[in-house]
């Protein structure tokens, strides 16, 4: 993939002539160096994932164990248990989170990229440092803020924006807020690194040619940072789909997502086949955009290679 131009020399001796023993020796070195990480990930990543998919086609027995027959029972059972609203909420909250992170992240990336070098570095630190505080502590801090006696509620109620009975905690809105809070820096990083490479003179050129601010922004800047936008979408949407602890702490019963359902099946009900079935569906949901992107990236290349 990288430095493909050198491959012709790799399996050759110092004079550049291919010799059989050196080819075998090089292969042995390659295998020896690859095996440690290959075997580790095979054993502790691929095999466990396959186990989850397999167990989802089993049923649970009455002792919290795993039945012996292959069946679709677990999928049927999870579809009966208020599953569709939770799936819909998971997809909806993940999409909203991604959208809000882009809406907030793109202007920040733009602003950072146009600032002076020193300011850019300082802004970057200001964005990253809050995330060196423990993840759970940050979520807990939001629970304190959104509490019925907390600051946000008091301020909003004083301004007359919410009634004094309104609850800010334990609903979808609270989950969305904390999801955006958690994933915004992950969106800003790729957006910023794309915006930093963007040639801002193009916007001036568009202005000189009579394009409006909005035209320049949507027709030149956004396409110019499209690689950053795609990365931002992936790093926000996919982890958001698997959210567990955020809805657990600020979501309440009305803010539960797929991740909570999985944890509940594992820790509370001890129904591993159902937990596996839910996990398999989540794997599918996660891999779908990645596969689409992979297809979009490699198919045209294969295609053009085929034509050439």
């Amino acid at each position: 993939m990288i430095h493909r131009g050198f491959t012709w020399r790799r399996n050759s001796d110092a004079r550049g002539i291919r010799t059989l023993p050196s080819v075998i020796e090089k292969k042995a070195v390659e295998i020896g160096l690859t095996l440690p990480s290959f075997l580790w990930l095979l054993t502790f990543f691929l095999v466990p994932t396959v186990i989850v998919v397999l167990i989802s086609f089993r049923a649970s027995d009455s002792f919290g164990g795993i039945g012996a027959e292959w069946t679709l029972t677990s999928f049927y059972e999870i579809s009966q248990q208020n599953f569709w609203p939770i799936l819909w909420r998971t997809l909806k909250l993940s999409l909203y989170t991604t959208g809000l992170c882009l809406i907030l992240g793109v202007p920040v990336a733009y602003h950072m990229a146009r600032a002076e070098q020193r300011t850019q570095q300082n802004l970057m630190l200001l964005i990253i440092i809050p995330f060196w505080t423990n993840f759970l502590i940050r979520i807990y801090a939001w629970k304190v803020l959104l509490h019925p006696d907390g600051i946000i509620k008091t301020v909003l109620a004083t301004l007359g924006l919410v009634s004094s009975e309104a609850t800010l905690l334990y609903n979808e809105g609270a989950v969305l807020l904390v999801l955006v809070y958690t994933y915004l820096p992950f969106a800003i990083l790729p957006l910023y690194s794309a915006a930093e490479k963007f040639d801002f003179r193009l916007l001036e050129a568009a202005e000189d040619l009579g394009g409006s601010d909005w035209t320049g922004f949507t027709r030149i800047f956004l396409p110019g940072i499209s690689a950053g936008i795609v990365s931002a979408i992936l790093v926000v949407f996919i982890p958001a789909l698997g959210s567990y602890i955020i809805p657990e702490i600020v979501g309440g019963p009305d803010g539960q997502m797929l991740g909570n359902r999985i944890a509940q099946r594992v820790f509370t009900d001890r129904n591993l086949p159902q937990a596996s079935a839910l996990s398999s569906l989540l794997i599918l949901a996660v891999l779908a955009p990645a596969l689409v992107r992979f297809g979009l990236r490699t198919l045209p290349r294969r295609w053009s290679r085929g034509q050439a």
Partner: protein
Amino acid sequence: MARRRGFFTGTISAGVLFFLWLPIGVLVIHSFNASRFSTAWSGFSLVWYERLLNDRAIWRSVENTLVVAGVSTLISVILGTLAGFTLYRYSTRLQRGHNSLVTLPLIIPDILMGMSLLLFFLAAGLPLGLGTIIIGHITFCVSYVAITIRARLQDFDYGVVEAAQDLGAPGWVIAYKIYLPLLLPGILAGAMLSLTLSLDDFIITFFTAGPGSSTLPVHIYSMIRHGSPPVINALSTLFLALTFVLVFGYQKFLRRKV
């Protein structure tokens, strides 16, 4: 027009920074709050810092966290460096499979990895404890180290290695004299990354931890559930202060060097 745009993006940036720092500020303020309820202020106090110092369970979980982070960083740096190097160096069918194995853990949400590792450990009959937590952490850290190392090698001029080979240098000399110095910054960056990820991981640890093996994040979670977080506020204020000292010390150090 550009000025108007600058004002607009500046306002949003300021708002975003306020949003990012708001909970941190609240947490720091409440760590000095005499009241145990985080919603009312009842005077300045260091009582939570005192409690923190005397809380045995917290320090044991800190110890567990450091052991897990240290061991898993060491092993994942070794595995990840080899992986990043081989992915860069060879382009064979083996590496294509290797590449998928390295990249897939990056896009799989933590809860899936935790769930699948739990089932795997149950199926294999491994007792849950620090050992299983370490295995889990290595599994998600290897990929991050590997991509850091590969990125470091991206612009490397392979001609240097060829020159060394032409001059008759054996493989281990090339590894020691060329690759190691070249990769050292990448290895350090990868180590920092996996250390950070391991120290902060909750979900995978939660799924793979056994009784008595809780790390700091898992302990914090149980404290949140059982309602004793002012101590946690104090702890995270200390961490934050440490981070600030490190970051600004590092910056000062860099400036002096220039």
